[in-house]
């Protein structure tokens, strides 16, 4: 791996909004350690424009990081008919929670549904497994 590989991956700031998904929820009650749960959880849904800005293809993996944590997840096209560049969607899961800011401003309610990350291509790096998160 040359030095250039690390230089060339463009980084993008993304605002993350989380949501719930019934298929992922159902997979969780079957087993939170299961393959299905990882497959349905460790994903981020992006605007196609952001996908090209990151010079990746749909299905590639992305590193998401901020000062609270870092995970590798799979990038998907959101499929929404409205443009939402700069905002990306993640299903609520241990993967999104690894990135949620711990400071709740003393309120006791962290910003689960709205936080920022820096995204860059994982260059084929594997999705973070659940055991690596905890």
């Amino acid at each position, binding site marked *: 791996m040359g030095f250039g590989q690390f230089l060339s991956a463009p980084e993008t700031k993304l605002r993350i*909004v989380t949501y719930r998904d*019934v*298929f992922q929820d159902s997979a969780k009650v079957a087993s*939170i350690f299961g393959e299905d749960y990882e497959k349905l959880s460790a994903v981020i849904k992006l605007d196609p424009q952001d996908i090209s800005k990151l010079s990746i293809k749909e299905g590639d993996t992305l590193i998401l990081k901020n000062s609270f944590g870092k995970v590798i997840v799979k990038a998907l096209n959101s499929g929404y008919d*409205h443009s939402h560049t700069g905002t990306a969607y993640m299903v609520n899961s241990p993967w999104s929670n690894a990135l949620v800011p711990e400071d709740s401003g003393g309120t*006791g*309610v962290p910003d*689960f*549904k709205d936080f920022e990350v820096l995204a860059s291509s994982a260059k084929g790096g594997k999705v973070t497994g659940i055991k690596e998160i905890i």
Partner: protein
Amino acid sequence: MENDYYVCTGCALLCDDIGVELEGGKLNKVHTACRKGFAFMKGCTNPMECAVNGERTDIDSAIKEAASILRNAERPLIFGHANSSSGAQKKAIDIARKTNGFIDDTSSFCQGPMVEAIMEGKLKTCTLDDVRHKADVIIYWGADPANSHPRHMSRYSYFPRGKERQRGWEEDRTAITIDVRKSDTAEICGQNGFYQIPVKGDAEFMDAMVSALSGKIPKTSYDLDKKKLLELASILKKAKFGVIFAGLGMVYALDDREPLYKLMDKLNSVSNFHLIPMAGHYNMRGFNENLFEETGYINRVKFSGEEVLHGPEYSVVEALRQKAVDAALVIGADPLSSLPRSVVRYLEEIPLIVIDPCHTLTSVKANVTIPCGLVGVETGGSAVRMDGIEIEVKQIVDTDRLSDEEIMTRISEAL
């Protein structure tokens, strides 16, 4: 027939019309439960074993060890409760009282503010049965029941015919989604019934609605289709029985509840509106009510002798961040999965007890794990639906595991 129905504990709708077929003492077929409910009732593939410090042991030793951890702690945290029966919740409150502990549940970082406002009488509410029989304007706000409570629309809020809604949803009901993205629920409400707002744009949208309802031109800092908003206002004005289902999207977007109070006041001066918080886990509302009965607070409590302390500093998040607790008992929740990683890391540093039917991310780190029966399948109990109605939950199959209530009772006695 009536008596053959069971209750699904997959979410806070607590659907009580579930039919089952058994084979060899196990569930073979489940009728009428949704995908999520069916998965929940089928149970997990990784049951938790009874263990102390990673060594398998019998239930008596595990309970003894749990009690000794709690006895030796000065400020234990008793957390979870959203997925446990009311009986177990009441015992949990006893345990917190006996140990001068902190007690909090998942509502602390979820629907707590809404449930609190309702219990304090600050928001007008109604039951799901009222909704089904009477509601003509239904608003899903920051809520996506198609994913969180799959049978919400078919059983109560939109599609079924009701006493005063005989002609069905097309003619008798208007469903509206207000959300930051076009959710599956928004798809059902159609283009005319979907109001897209920016992230954290909820408070402004509420203000704009109040203006529109007062016949003023609504103003927002973001782009908004004014004509569509005025149409919305006229729909809301004509409502005979309106209901707002407040989802987590709304709860998290509001810094305080003032804009919502103002909107509800306005709505109730021009028509008739109610609010129901979309509690997720099957008995979160139950915990809020049980603790309220005992202490006057719905969550975030610390016992200190005769005194009951309450405030954000006693929330699970702040208690862990400030490292204010020195042991933890977790029942009916999985904080390692549902809280920010940076907050829950502290749980690994203190003695930890987990009571759950299944392995969870939290149980992996626990010193003591005590398996309980799955409420609604292996054991019974009672629980409170998202609208505050108490539902009796029946046992379906036999198990040799203790119920969550029995385990909590025995721990409490051993203290």
